[in-house]
């Protein structure tokens, strides 16, 4: 599988990563090489193998429904670049 430059530009936009146009072609080659490397996994016959859903055999760790957290607004907002009346302030979102 190989990626073209347009696909790289699209993935970058989806991930909100700025990649200048001049770097996209080179990145397409690099990413295609990585994908090719991963595609080798397809050579292994896994027809009778159950998918591994978790690397550890853990017992289920469900939580009891109780309020044990929250009420720490100052901590939550500590890194906010701006706040107003207890809310985060972000650049205006235009619908």
């Amino acid at each position, binding site marked *: 599988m190989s990626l073209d430059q347009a696909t790289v530009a*699209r993935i970058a*936009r*989806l991930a*909100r990563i700025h990649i200048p146009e001049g770097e996209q072609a080179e990145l397409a080659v690099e990413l295609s090489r990585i994908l090719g490397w991963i595609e080798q996994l397809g050579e292994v016959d896994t027809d009778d193998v159950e998918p591994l*859903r*978790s690397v550890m055999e*853990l017992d*289920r*760790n*469900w*939580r*009891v*429904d*109780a*309020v*044990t*957290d*929250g*009420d*720490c*607004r100052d*901590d*939550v*907002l500590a890194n906010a670049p*701006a706040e*107003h*009346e*207890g*809310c*985060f*302030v*972000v*650049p*205006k*979102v235009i*619908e």
Partner: protein
Amino acid sequence: MSFRIEGATGSWEIVCGLEVHAQVATASKLFSGASTAFGGEANTHVAPLDAGMPGMLPVVNAKAIEMAVMTGLGLNARINRLSIFERKNYFYPDLPLGYQISQYQTPIVGEGVLAIDLEDGSRKDVRITRLHLEADAGKSIHDQLGDGTLIDLNRCGVALMEIVSEPDIGSPEEAVAYMRKLRSILRYLGTCDGDMEKGNLRCDANVSVRPAGSTELGTRCEIKNLNSMRFVARAIEHEAKRQVELIESGGTVVQETRLYDSVRGETRSMRGKEEAQDYRYFPDPDLLPVVLDEALIEDLRARLPELPDARKQRFESEFALSAYDAGVLTDERATADFFENVAAGRDAKIAANWVINDLYGALGRKGLSIEESPVCAERLGKLLDLIADGTISGKIAKDVFSSMMEDPADPLAIVEAKGLRQVSDTSAIEPVIDDIIAANPDQVASLQKNPKAIGWFVGQVMKASKGKANPKMVSDLLRAKLALPD
């Protein structure tokens, strides 16, 4: 009765499926221990995990899983023994993690069915595609600051059940019936409070149109965030008409997301969100698959309450109520419980009339719910006993009931205090009758020609006794004194 839109070129039918978001009635969030309470100060119900702080791990809320399974059982749906939480990636300021934790390929609940009752008395099955668990996003407030948007994360991470139907809904009425029935079942199960005003139950509608009788599906539009029953009906109808007009004038429906503007009563395109609807789902590596064992499922099944359909049928057979009355009484679990307490050991039909007409009416005027009723089932039952044993007439009972809405006293105490006890003593009624006969010779004369005019005399006696005379006794005594046949 099928719903049709009459266009310029012919008849059209609506094809609609609903995606309902129901907030799970848990105390804490789906993956954090922060509170889900409504109306807290901004960002006070937020754990570091909900704010997307690095190094935090989600741990699933057992109650949310149980409630999702319970809801699945209530919808006669398949419960998936294995389900997986995945990350749905998109950027929006009210989603600090940069992804929503949801279930995609393997939801916790699969196919089910919901039977809806329509106004013409018919029933229709609407197929459920799936129910999955996901975390809600926060709230963006756009209109408070001129150049900024405010973000409150109190809702962020609250457990939602997304319940998706097949496109089996053919009219605005069916859509509302579906929402009402789903709401009723959720409330019976106690898995969602169904409060649409608070946004705890809301839906997106997928709407398309096709020529009547056609079996092909047209291109659909999704209308987002309908938060009242009225808006559901109006938005679907409006959107279907828009599509018919568009097609008939030579245009093509474009698959897109639209917003319903309740002020203008129209839907409009949400442009910009269409590009790159690529959520790049993948299993969340921080969460284990949800594995349900049979013991848990059977335990939940055993705890299922009697659901509205079964209860309605029982009310019809056990209490000989009409389908309409049984439906009204079983719509809400609290009302059905109330009615059953009143009806126990009494005439069920009379109990139903009192609950539906008098109690509903009085509560409606005060804007109260059945849970807030000043007259409890036990007191209403005692009032009905007073009618049954002849202590008061049905008419006087209405006055006593009005007093009971204001006064917590026992109905008998109210009757005694106000001197409303029915007079069934002939020696007390006879003088009143004699006076009225003596005072109205003309009426007596006309009575011989028109025996039905006796009603006028009964009315006069009742009036003179301030409604307290036993009406049956008054009528009997009058007939005897005036020598009329029974």
